[in-house]
C-alpha cells in the first residue's frame, strides 16, 4: 500500500533535485536511471518485465484478436532472443539484441477485451494492478483503444494501440501515454478517393452503412469528404449496432434508395456479414442510375477477405500493411510468422508486433522504463525496416505516418491466403495532415505512482 497521491508531482521534485546535481557537474547518466526507478507505476524490479496484451478474444473482432495474440507471442519470443528474430534484424534502430528489454526478460500477460470498452478497461486495469504490466498494448476497436488509452494516461502506463482506425484515437481523444502505429480513417479517405474516382467515375450516389461508434463515425466522415470532393453525392447514412449479425433490414432499403455505391463502414465479422449479405441481395449484379452498382469497404484486412470469400472479389479498400509486400522487413516477418503458425500474418498481427518492438526499442534508447523518457524517445521518432518503408511517429499527436495501401479483392487467388492485391500506394507525404484539424490535447507526461 502506498500513500503517494497522484496530485503531487513527484517528478518536479526530482527535477529540482537533479538540476542541483547537474549544476555541480556530477550527473552520471547511471544515476539518473537509478533515480527514476521507484517513481512510476510498475517499475520492473526483478529480472523480468511484464507487458499486458489486451485483445478481443471474443466479440465481433475476435478473428483479428486471435491474430494479434499470435503476433505478441512471436514478438515476445523474438525480443527474448528466440526464433529467427523476425523484423529485429531489419529494423533501422539496432538497439534490440534479443536479450529482452534493458536486459530484462519479457513476460506477457493476456486479457480478453471482449471488443467492449468497459470490459477492456477492466481487463487492462487487472493487468496493471494485479500483474504489474509496465506497458499495455492491443485492442481491436477504437472505442476500446480510446477507453484503455484514457485509463493508461490516468495510471501512467504507456499504451501502444494496435488495431484502431478512428481519427479520434490520435485526434480529439489523443493522450500523451497513447501511441498508434496503425493508420487512420482520414488517411484511408485520402488514399482511397482518387482510386474510387478513377474506377467508378465522378457522378455517383453513395449510401453509407456505418458501425455505430467512434471509428464508424470518423470513417464515414472521412470517406464522405473524400468522395464528395470527387463530386459524389452522399445519402443520409445509416448506423448499425456492432455485432448485429443479420444486416438484412438495413440492406433492404439500399436497393430502392437511388444509390449506386454502398460503402460499408464495418469491420471484422460485421463486415464479413454485411458484405456477404449485400452480395446475397444481388447488389453486385444490380444496375442503378445506368451504372453498375458497386460496394466499397474502406478498411479491409486479409482475415475479413478470408471470411467474406468470393464476395470480396474486386472490392476496393485500404490496408495498413499486407503480407505480400516485397520489402525485406515484410518478407522476414511473414516468413517467421508463417513458419510458426502455418498462415501469413494479417495487418492486425503486423501492427501489434511492430508496436511491441517499438516500445522495446524506445526503452533501450531512453535507457530506462521511466515512462516520460520512453515517451520522449517515441515522440518524433523516425524509423524504417518494419514494413511500410520510412515511418515517422509524429510528436504532436502520436500518429504514425507512412505509406498507405489501396487494395482490391483478388479475382483469382493463387492460394487460400492470396486474397488482396495492392492496386495503389498513397505516399507518406500525401497522407500527412495538420494535427490541428482534429483538435484534442495530449495532456501531461507526468509519471504516476501506483
Amino acid at each position: 500500500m502506498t500513500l503517494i497521491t497522484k496530485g503531487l508531482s513527484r517528478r518536479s521534485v526530482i527535477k529540482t533535485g537533479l538540476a542541483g546535481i547537474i549544476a555541480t557537474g556530477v550527473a552520471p547518466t547511471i544515476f539518473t536511471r537509478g533515480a527514476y526507478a521507484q517513481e512510476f507505476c510498475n517499475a520492473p524490479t526483478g529480472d523480468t518485465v511484464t507487458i499486458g496484451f489486451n485483445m478481443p478474444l471474443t466479440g465481433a473482432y475476435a478473428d483479428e484478436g486471435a491474430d494479434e495474440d499470435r503476433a505478441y507471442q512471436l514478438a515476445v519470443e523474438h525480443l527474448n532472443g528466440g526464433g529467427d528474430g523476425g523484423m529485429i534484424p531489419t529494423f533501422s534502430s539496432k538497439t534490440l539484441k534479443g536479450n529482452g528489454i534493458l536486459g530484462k526478460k519479457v513476460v506477457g500477460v493476456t486479457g480478453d477485451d471482449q471488443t467492449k470498452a468497459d470490459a477492456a478497461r477492466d481487463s487492462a486495469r487487472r493487468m496493471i494492478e494485479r500483474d504489474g504490466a509496465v506497458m499495455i498494448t492491443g485492442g481491436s476497436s477504437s472505442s476500446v483503444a480510446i477507453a484503455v488509452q484514457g485509463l493508461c494516461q490516468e495510471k501512467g502506463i504507456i499504451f501502444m494501440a494496435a488495431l484502431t482506425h478512428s481519427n479520434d484515437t490520435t485526434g480529439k481523444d489523443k493522450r500523451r501515454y497513447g501511441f498508434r502505429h496503425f493508420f487512420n480513417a482520414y488517411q484511408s479517405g485520402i488514399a482511397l478517393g482518387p482510386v474510387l474516382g478513377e474506377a467508378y467515375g465522378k457522378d455517383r450516389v453513395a449510401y453509407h452503412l456505418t458501425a455505430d461508434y467512434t471509428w464508424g463515425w470518423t470513417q464515414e466522415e472521412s470517406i464522405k469528404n473524400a468522395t464528395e470532393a470527387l463530386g459524389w453525392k452522399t445519402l443520409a447514412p445509416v448506423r448499425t449496432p456492432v455485432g448485429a449479425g443479420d444486416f438484412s433490414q438495413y440492406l433492404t432499403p439500399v436497393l430502392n434508395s437511388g444509390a449506386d455505391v454502398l460503402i460499408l463502414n464495418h469491420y471484422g465479422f460485421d463486415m464479413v456479414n454485411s458484405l456477404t449479405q449485400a452480395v446475397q441481395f444481388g447488389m453486385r449484379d444490380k444496375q442503378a442510375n445506368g451504372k453498375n452498382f458497386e460496394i466499397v469497404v474502406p478498411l479491409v484486412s486479409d482475415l475479413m477477405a478470408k471470411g467474406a470469400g468470393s464476395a470480396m472479389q474486386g472490392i476496393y479498400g485500404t490496408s495498413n500493411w499486407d503480407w505480400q509486400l516485397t520489402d525485406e522487413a515484410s518478407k522476414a516477418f511473414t516468413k517467421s510468422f508463417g513458419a510458426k503458425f502455418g498462415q501469413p500474418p494479417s495487418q492486425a498481427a503486423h501492427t501489434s508486433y511492430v508496436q511491441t518492438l517499438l516500445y522495446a526499442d524506445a526503452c533501450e534508447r531512453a535507457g530506462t522504463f521511466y515512462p516520460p523518457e520512453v515517451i520522449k524517445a517515441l515522440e518524433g521518432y523516425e524509423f524504417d525496416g518494419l514494413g511500410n518503408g520510412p515511418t515517422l511517429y509524429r510528436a504532436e499527436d502520436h500518429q504514425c505516418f507512412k505509406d498507405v495501401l489501396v487494395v482490391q479483392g483478388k479475382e483469382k487467388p493463387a492460394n487460400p491466403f492470396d486474397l488482396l492485391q495492392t492496386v495503389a500506394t498513397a505516399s507518406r507525404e500525401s497522407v500527412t495532415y495538420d494535427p490541428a484539424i482534429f483538435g484534442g490535447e495530449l495532456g501531461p507526461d507526468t509519471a504516476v505512482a501506483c
Partner: protein
Amino acid sequence: MDLFNLPRRDWITFGLFALVVVTMPIWLTPLGASYPGLLQKFAIFAIFAIGFNILFGLTGYLSFGHAAFLGVGSYTAVWSFKLLTMDALPAIMFAVIVSGLFALVIGYLSLRRTGIYFSILTLAFAQMCYNLAYSVLTPITNGETSLQLTLQDPRVIDSALAARPEGLPSASIFGHVFDGFEGFYFCAALLLIAFFIALKIFSSPFGMMLRAIKSNQTRMNYTGFDTKPYALTAFVISGMYAGLAGALLAVTDPLAGAERMQWTASGEVVLMTILGGVGTLIGPVIGAWLIKYFENIFSAFNEQVLTRFFSFLPPEITEPVVTISSKFVGEGWHLTLGLIFVLVVVFLPGGIMEGVRRIGALFRRTTPPSAPAARPAAPTIQPAE
C-alpha cells in the same frame, strides 16, 4: 434511537461482516485477489446483489432488468464528474436519486404484472434502455464508444474553486484523490452502510410485509395491506442500490459503457443472488464475491498453471487431466459457473447459505430452529391474483 435499534443478533452479524470486509486486503492476499481493482469490484457488486436481494429475496419478484439501474447510476455519476465536480459524494447522490426515479417509473409499470410477465417486462425495459443508450441517446451516453471524462469538460464547481489541473482529474472526496486501496475502503464504507440498511429492512416490520407479499399476496390484501406500494418501495430501494453500485463503478473508474445495461449483466446479478442464497442477508454478498473472484482469478488459470498443479500425478495421466480441466478454467470458467449454478438450483435451492446451514445442522445433529428471518426460502413466483 430508532436508527441504531437492531436486535443483538444482527449487531453481531454486522460486526462480523464489517470485520471481514475491512480485513479483505489481508486475508485475500494468499488467494491472489488483493489488488484494488478486484477489491473494489467485490464491494460494488456486493452492494448490487444486496439491493437485488431486497427485491427478489424478500418480495419474490424476479427482475431480469436490474442492470439498467446500474447503468443509469454510472452515466449519472460520470455526467456529474463532467459537468460539476470530481467529488464523489454529489456523483453518488445524483446517481442514487436518478436511478431511484428510473426505478419508480419502470417499477410502477412493471409491478402491474406478476410472475413471468413481470420478469419479461423488466427485461424489455432494460433492453430498451440498453438499445437507446447504444443508438439514439449517443449524445448523452456516447454509445458504444462509452462516456468518458475529457480535458474539455466544464466541471463548473471545480474550475470555480481551483485552477484546472494538468491532465485528466480523478474522482476525489473533499479534494482528496483516491489512490489504490483508499478507493476500496471508500467502497467498503458504502458497502457497510448498504449492508446496515439491508439489516434494518430485514428485521423491520416493513421487511416482514415484503416477505409476506412473497408468501401470499392475496392474504396480504385481505389483511388490509395495499401490496402495490410495498412492492414498489422495494423495487425503488433495490434500484437505488443498483444506482449506488453503478456510481461507485464510475468513481473507481470514470467510464460508463452501455454494455453495463445489457440483459446478460442483469442475469449476472441473478446468478450471484441465487448462488449465495436468495432471501438471506449474507448469501448474495458471498455469491457476488465468488463470481467476481472466479471471473478475475479462475479465468487467468492456463495450461501451465494446471500442469504445475497436477504435477504430482504420473506424467501419462497429467496430460489428459490438464487438457480436460483446462476446459473448465481460463476462457472456459463460464462453463464451471454454469455447472455450479445448475447444481445449486437443482440440489440446493437455498444456495450456498443453505449448504452452510445443512452442514451446520449435521454437526449439531439437531434440526435448525426455524427462524424465518434467516431461512433462505426457495424463490417463488407470485400467485396470479
